[in-house]
């Protein structure tokens, strides 16, 4: 099948949203969006619509969509999807080539992406395009419930700039969506620092997203500076959830070997699905 690739900037956000939702209708983990959310996504994650694309058949029928994030020397491929009836036609491969060529033309050093674990067709496509697996991450949820554990520690709540400062000091790799550059683009980024009596110290940063009627917590990153990660992490999370007792929480891209993982689980977080991060150097 002949695939025509058109820069995504030529489409309205509504058109891109409708196409994106059609590509995800039978997805392993359905994640539809509306135009406002997609516009936020484009803004927050530095999506370059010039180098993102819509795939169409020769007769003009839409086949799929893919987006490219661009930051300094790095690119990030996201939202790649092909309509169910148009899969195995080469549209996904053609969109990948469009974006990788675009990234190369911008002089970028490497390209990252994440694929949902067990999405074998997409995973195989990325392997064929030269990507290699780097890390595995968990996407976890926690429903609000009463805190029964004792809460300790001297806590300082961090406003936007303070939360950004501590995130910038994080020594471990962070995926694109939780990175400093992403949080810098969002108005709802906050955090807290803690000092325990036994000398343990650490911080937790997160987004506190306000919808029209309610709020949720997401994009959590925990770091223990001194002491036992289980103890420090537990008190950071207890203080957070005690402050926001009724908030639903979505912890996205927590490394599967994160030292605070057992603490998340002890406080009622459960895994929704896993993602494999992949990288392709130029």
């Amino acid at each position, binding site marked *: 099948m002949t695939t025509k690739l058109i820069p995504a900037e030529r489409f309205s956000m509504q058109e891109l949203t409708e196409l994106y939702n059609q590509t995800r209708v039978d997805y392993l*983990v359905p994640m*539809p969006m509306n135009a406002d959310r997609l516009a936020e996504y484009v803004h927050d994650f530095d999506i370059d619509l010039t180098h993102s694309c819509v795939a169409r058949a020769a007769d003009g029928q839409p086949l799929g969509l893919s987006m490219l994030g661009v930051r300094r020397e790095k690119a990030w491929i996201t939202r790649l999807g092909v309509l169910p009836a148009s899969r195995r036609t080469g549209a996904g491969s053609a969109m990948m080539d469009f974006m990788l060529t675009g990234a190369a033309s911008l002089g970028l050093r490497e390209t990252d992406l994440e694929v949902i674990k067990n999405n074998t067709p997409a995973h195989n496509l990325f392997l064929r395009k030269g990507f290699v697996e780097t890390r595995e991450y968990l996407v976890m949820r926690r429903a609000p419930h009463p805190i029964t554990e004792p809460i300790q520690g001297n806590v300082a709540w961090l406003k936007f700039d303070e939360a950004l400062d501590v995130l910038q000091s994080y020594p471990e790799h962070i995926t694109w969506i939780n990175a400093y550059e992403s949080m810098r683009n969002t108005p709802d980024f906050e955090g807290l620092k803690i000092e325990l009596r036994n000398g343990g110290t650490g911080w937790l940063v997160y987004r506190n997203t306000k919808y*029209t009627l*309610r709020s949720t917590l997401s994009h959590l990153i925990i770091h223990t500076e001194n002491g036992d990660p289980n103890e420090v992490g537990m008190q950071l999370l207890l203080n957070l959830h005690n402050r926001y007792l009724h908030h639903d929480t*979505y912890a996205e891209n927590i490394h599967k070997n994160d030292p605070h993982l057992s603490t998340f689980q002890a406080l*009622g977080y459960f*895994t*929704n699905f896993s993602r494999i991060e992949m990288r392709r150097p130029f």
Partner: protein
Amino acid sequence: MAKILYIEDIQDNITLVEKIVTSRGHEFLYAKSAEQGLELAFSSTPDLILLDLGLPDADGQTLSVWLKGDPALANIPIIVLTAWPEEVVQHTVEAYNLNGYLCKPFSMQALLKIINEALGTKAL
């Protein structure tokens, strides 16, 4: 007969569930987003909510927290209708204190059975 609110963004699914629900004489309402669903729940106080987990603004888990968090809506049973993997749905229903689930695709009989169970009725 009961008033049933279905919160789901895909029109084909709405049409299918509407046919099944109204065939048994229930009143059928629907919303295509979490915020519309919340507003409709407040304004109509349904007897039962059927909830998709993948919604375009906030997802179904988050919406269930909002619904359960309001005293006027907290006791309305919520049944999840979703294409998510069954193991994840089981965890979700348990963690979010929901009343049951059906994984898509489902049969008319299965939907009516779970609706009847949630409404506490036997032969609608």
